[in-house]
């Protein structure tokens, strides 16, 4: 009966309801598609166009990439961002996963919930606010942990923010603001591990370490990959932290620490829009390829 109905009522091979739903689907995504084109696709296209042309608008091959790469600050900036990313991603994976597992094991629900909440609070201070807070924390003359800084051999603000320490300091700032949110996400994912899987591990005599290592972490893998991808993409864009620090550093930190600071400098201080576009394109290519590798190797989006 159903078969007859659908074959008589449809013009082609698809039943009419599907057409109607298909049109509705397109209507529902229309607004998003317009924004996607205007603020995702077009600027990317624009960046690529500027990266491969010169100031006069004629095709210039890779010359913008070569000029910017030969800039004396470029390799330094690449190195800074790479070291920062290494610190940032490792600390994020180790401590976020560790803390989530520990919080999940807490027998007191109230304690676990309050701790998650308190850990999350710095998330409200993202952006310029977190940098300002840490400028204070790192300034031995006002810091509540100035004795700790003193023990580590730092007595002036200038000593703390010496160029060699910056990658670590930016990691601390980023972890302080970002970790709480990811702990909440990981905790949610841990909650979703089916009860019988945990019970089975328990019955098999697995201790806390074994359960975490062999059951929970593998089941968190997708979320960890997701976190690393987003943290990588965000970390490669480092801008506000070094920029504000350079404003406050009594001349210790420069305005050319990160790649995005360099694009800003090329575009707005040196009037080299094409060079800035070339660096932007490089950042995009790296971010998207790294994400692509992670996605492909982990099978993150297999479900689709």
């Amino acid at each position: 009966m159903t078969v007859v109905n659908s074959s008589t009522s449809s013009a082609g091979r698809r039943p009419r309801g599907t057409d109607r739903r298909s049109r509705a689907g397109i209507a529902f995504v229309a607004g998003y598609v317009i924004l996607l084109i205007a603020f995702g696709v077009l600027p990317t296209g624009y960046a690529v166009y500027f990266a491969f042309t010169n100031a006069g608008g004629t095709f210039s091959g890779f010359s913008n990439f070569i000029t910017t790469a030969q800039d004396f600050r470029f390799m330094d900036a690449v190195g800074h961002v790479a070291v920062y990313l290494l610190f940032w991603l490792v600390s994020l994976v180790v401590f976020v996963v560790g803390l989530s597992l520990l919080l999940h094991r807490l027998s007191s629900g109230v304690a676990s919930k309050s701790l998650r909440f308190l850990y999350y609070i710095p998330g409200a201070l993202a952006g310029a606010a977190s940098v300002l807070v840490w400028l204070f924390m790192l300034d031995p003359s006002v810091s509540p942990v100035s004795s700790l800084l003193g023990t580590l051999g730092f007595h002036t603000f200038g000593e703390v923010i010496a160029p060699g320490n910056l990658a670590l300091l930016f990691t601390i700032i980023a972890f302080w603001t970002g970790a709480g949110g990811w702990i909440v996400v990981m905790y949610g994912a841990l909650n979703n591990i089916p009860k019988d899987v945990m019970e089975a591990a328990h019955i098999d005599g697995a201790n806390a370490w074994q359960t975490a290592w062999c059951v929970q972490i593998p089941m968190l893998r997708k979320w960890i990959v997701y976190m690393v991808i987003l943290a990588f993409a965000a970390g490669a864009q480092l801008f506000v932290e070094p920029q504000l620090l350079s404003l406050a550093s009594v001349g210790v930190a420069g305005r050319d620490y990160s790649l995005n600071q360099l694009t800003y400098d090329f575009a707005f201080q040196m009037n080299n829009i094409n060079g800035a576009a070339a660096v932007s394109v490089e950042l995009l290519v790296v971010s998207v390829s790294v994400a692509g590798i992670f996605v492909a190797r982990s099978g993150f989006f297999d479900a689709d």
Partner: protein
Amino acid sequence: MSRTHLQAPARRRPTRNLVPRLLTGSFLVVFLVFFVLPVLWLVLAATKTDQQLVHGNPLSIGSWHAFKANWDALTGFQDNAIMQWLGNSTLYAVISLVITLCVTIPAGYALAMTEFRGRHSLLVATLVVMLMPTATLVVPLFLEVNAVHLIGSMWSIILPYSFYPFGVYLTYIYFSTAVPKDLLAAARMDGCSEFGVFRHIALPLATPVIALVGFFSFVANWTNYFLPYVMLPESSQMPIQVGVGSLLSNVPSFNPAVGTTAIERPQLALATLVAITPVLVVFLFAQRFLVSGMLAGATKE
């Protein structure tokens, strides 16, 4: 597999696992101090004079008088610029939030629940752009906005903020995992239009994800620095983030070259508090969804 069998080992745990439990506890407490101490210090700093900040106990409370003086000095800076920045931020964040929700929720719903030509490519495009945060696109966006003569207009940041692929992706995950398709099919069978299904069935079920997308997008827009820094260079148009950054360059102890319009450190701490208050308020409202593990259901396979 009876309950009693499972609970028997648990009862012995406290004595056997005392050392690991102490280690766990201290680990959690160390991180608690790390996360909370700076916030606590910041709140207290706003109630002190610069002298007290340097010489007093870092965790002491200042005085109402000092707080009032800091407040007056802060609002006195550039003739109450801080309130103007706060107003700007609110305007930008709220308008873009409304646009984001109106655009994002239907899009995520359609990607999860309907079939249409180009659905798969749109999903892939969303994943790709999700990985390229606006920061890399700031210079290209500047060029694009400059080409249509919108530099210095609030739309130059509101419209890019409204584009929020992460929200589309979250909504997509939510609808494809937490809302059964049968439910929508039943409503269609009862004669509901496609819009009616969305409006009457999907939307009420989507409250948690709307709260989540709204919260994330509000915080992302409120805390964005690079884009408005480039697009809205005039002080009267700055959002609070950029404004607070410009206050920083007027603090003599961080930047000795400052002239007469100096700002002291407690006033900067107060400005930072002012900048985060709206986010904290929104956060308190949204935390029910956030901390209670709203992702419950979103990850089932």
